[in-house]
């Protein structure tokens, strides 16, 4: 069956809509918006903490990345362009230097009563993102916008449909495989007239994604599969389809989101699948062709000061990339929601689990209760295993917030974490990391404009009996003092102290003893209207950096960081 060409359809509608709105354009003066963001690093080599042996520390000394967004809207027209600049940047790969600049994104769109037509680099999401999410996350240099066209049609006030087609962005180029998608989303109010409105509602949706591999990508798969023995061989297909059905059911204060997603069989790398070697032995890691599925549900209640959210998720073989040869955060088509609390304090965020794409079963419960205007308590529990029941992650998090007459506020709690470092960081033979982290955050308002905030955290970690040390980097103590003068200035001084060094802590080259090092940080922030600048001196230990379950291991950093952001 021949495929309808969505690009042709979009062009026809674009021409049509341009003619019918020209009169409206004369009355609308339009609006111009923009944004600028820069992060510059001045690298100071510190071999003791592992901040060395990349070009930035060895001889470049400076690296930066900047983005300038410009957009203009008028009479339903929407155009935008973004200029991206990377100068010896370590953002793409923390161990390498990357220099490039150019137009990182552009788009042009037009909305009418019934249609929205868009071309260029397009961000979008289907449901919770399980089968498709094109988004930008600058902290990890994720920008997997679709370079293509999208047509949205408003069927009526409650229903709309959209179709899109294109290729995934890859920095200043794009990946070769093609993608196309279609979504139908609606809203149904089932509340009887007697009960009023919006008591019982549904927001169903169905989405489908198709991916077609280009000849080059298929050739690379064939190159791999042909090296396998017969028992491991499979016949790859060019096309993969993924579909998702999702719905939000709302009944008064109760909201229930469910999503079921499936993916047809496609080739992907499974690091645990056993490959038969030519000498008859087997070893893990090979390309396989399997179908995948994700089931996700979230039940929440909010009312009378009580908020409860219960979540569950099951993932099987849902590695969905434009090219199966890509790894880590490259070429991901979808986004599977994380099932743990997104922590922000330095030590409570130290061990965060990356979402597992091939085998994961997870549960999370979050309860918050506001006793009165002064006191709020909350607790969170998450538990993640693989599909064989092996524990990957467990977190228990409690928090109490007490506000006293707007003069001061204290927040504190306890976090308990079990973290499978062997799976999440590929560190061999290490036991599951076990941490206990009490924390307290105290805010005191000195005057209407001046305030002082302090944080104290202590991370106590378990023992690695085999190694004869504390696990990983050992115990940590963290302290922060932040002084703010509203609305412009903020000053911060903090230190993360490796109070009891662990197995991976640096060693004194002379004595061979593990070193209890300080990792200080000094920050100055200045805000003026929609502009924000910061200058920081940072000494930072190696750690996992996560954004919404997408994580990567960041090496240690030593040096100065300057940031500027502005929107207009």
């Amino acid at each position: 069956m021949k495929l309808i060409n969505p690009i042709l359809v979009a062009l026809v509608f674009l021409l049509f809509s341009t003619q019918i709105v020209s009169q409206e354009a004369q009355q609308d003066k339009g609006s111009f918006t923009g944004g600028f963001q820069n992060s510059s690093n001045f690298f100071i080599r510190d071999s003791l903490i592992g901040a060395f042996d990349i070009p930035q520390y060895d001889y470049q000394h400076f690296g930066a990345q900047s983005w300038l967004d410009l957009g203009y809207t008028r009479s339903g027209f929407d155009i935008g362009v973004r200029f991206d600049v990377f100068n010896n940047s370590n953002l793409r790969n923390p161990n390498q230097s990357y220099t490039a600049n150019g137009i990182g994104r552009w788009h042009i769109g037009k909305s009418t009563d019934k249609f929205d037509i868009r071309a260029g680099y397009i961000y979008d999401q289907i449901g919770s993102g399980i089968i498709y999410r094109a988004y930008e996350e600058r902290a990890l240099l994720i920008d997997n916008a679709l370079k293509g066209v999208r047509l949205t049609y408003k069927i009526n006030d409650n229903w709309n449909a959209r179709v899109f087609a294109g290729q995934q962005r890859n920095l200043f180029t794009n990946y070769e495989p093609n993608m196309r998608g279609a979504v139908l989303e609606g809203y149904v109010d089932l509340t009887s007239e007697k009960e009023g409105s919006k008591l019982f509602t549904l927001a169903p949706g169905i989405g489908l994604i198709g991916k077609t591999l280009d000849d080059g990508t298929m050739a690379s798969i064939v190159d791999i599969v042909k090296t396998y023995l017969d028992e491991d061989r499979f016949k790859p297909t060019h096309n993969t389809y993924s579909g998702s059905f999702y719905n939000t059911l709302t009944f008064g204060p109760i909201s229930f989101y469910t999503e079921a997603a499936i993916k047809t069989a496609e080739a992907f790398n499974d690091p645990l699948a056993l490959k038969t070697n030519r000498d008859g032995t087997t070893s893990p890691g090979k390309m396989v062709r399997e179908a995948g599925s994700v089931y996700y549900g979230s039940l929440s209640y909010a009312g009378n000061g009580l908020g409860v959210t219960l979540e569950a998720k099951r993932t099987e073989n849902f590695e969905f990339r434009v090219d199966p040869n890509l790894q880590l955060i490259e070429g991901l088509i979808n986004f599977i929601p994380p099932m743990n609390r997104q922590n922000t304090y330095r030590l409570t965020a130290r061990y965060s689990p990356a979402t597992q794409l091939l085998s994961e079963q997870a549960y999370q419960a979050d309860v918050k209760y506001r006793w009165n205007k002064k006191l709020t308590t909350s607790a969170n529990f998450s538990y993640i295993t693989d599909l064989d029941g092996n524990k990957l992650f467990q977190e228990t998090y409690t928090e109490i917030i007490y506000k006293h007459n707007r003069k001061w506020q204290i927040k504190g709690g306890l976090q308990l974490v079990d973290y499978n470092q062997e799976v999440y960081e590929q560190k061999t033979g290490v036991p599951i990391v076990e941490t206990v982290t009490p924390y307290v955050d105290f805010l005191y308002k000195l005057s209407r404009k001046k305030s002082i905030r302090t944080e104290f955290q202590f991370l106590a970690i378990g023992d690695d009996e085999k190694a004869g040390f504390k696990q990983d980097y050992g115990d940590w103590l963290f302290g922060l003092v932040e002084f703010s003068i509203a609305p412009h200035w903020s000053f911060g001084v903090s230190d993360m102290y490796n109070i009891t060094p662990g197995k991976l802590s640096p060693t004194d080259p002379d004595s061979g003893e593990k070193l209890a090092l300080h990792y200080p940080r000094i920050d100055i922030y200045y805000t003026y209207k929609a502009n924000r600048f910061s200058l920081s001196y940072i000494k930072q230990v190696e750690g996992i950096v996560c954004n919404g379950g997408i994580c990567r291991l960041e090496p240690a950093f030593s040096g100065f960081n300057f940031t500027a952001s502005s929107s207009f």
Partner: protein
Amino acid sequence: MKYQFLALITIVLLMSGCTETMVVIPELTNECTEKVILIEELTGVSCPNCPKGTEAVDDILALFPGSVVVVGIHGDFLSEPKSDSKYDFRSEQAKAVEDFLKPWLGKPTATVDRFPFPDLPEGDISLINTSQWLSRVEQRCQTPQSLDIQIGTDYDEETRQATITVTTTGMVPLEGELRMNLFITESHLIDPQDAGGLGQGIIADYEHNHVLKDMLSELTGDFLVSDLSINQEVVKTYTYEMPAENNGEWLIENMEVVAFVTEGGQTRGPVLHAALAHLD
């Protein structure tokens, strides 16, 4: 309701792929020309996935006997010894080669003839996916041989000094400056290896082979000849004084010499031809 129905029809039409012509997987061929291929395996004792790379290399050596020469580069990244290691395979030379072959994403990584395969990013010659190494060797082994390298060694047991004579002979006219590279490697070293990627933890008695121990040429190779004509012979002689045997390391019977010549006018690669000989 008709709109919803139309939308559904559109979705179905857009997604429909019907049946597609199945891709034919060809058989692997190991019929090669006389050219010998160089594999530089970037590896490390503390690299949990590196044994997968070594398995891939062993597979290649078994399938292409005599057509492939391997050098294991234990540079710096993930190469620190384990707590119960007897040896430290890291060296300044290995680190220099590791840096010279950048950019690469991680380990294990390999270069095959330092060849910039068309699907790799510009300036990149490394192959991070171990599954691809074998097929890349299959591709390169169809390349006609353009020159021959013969290695002669003369080892003095008393002084532990080896004289290495490398004779390069042109088989087709080659233009541009050719450069000779000479590595010393050692095999059959039994020492711990992180094998977490195989689910085996630390393997205490892992056999490390083809470990780069020294580099007798410049990092970019030594000047060999400006142009090479058919049957023209160029001889280069190197001397190497081997360190004293230490705890099972630097055993002459395990030492090998690897020589390779890079393409005319190139200082890094691609490699035209490689050769291997025992040092004793």
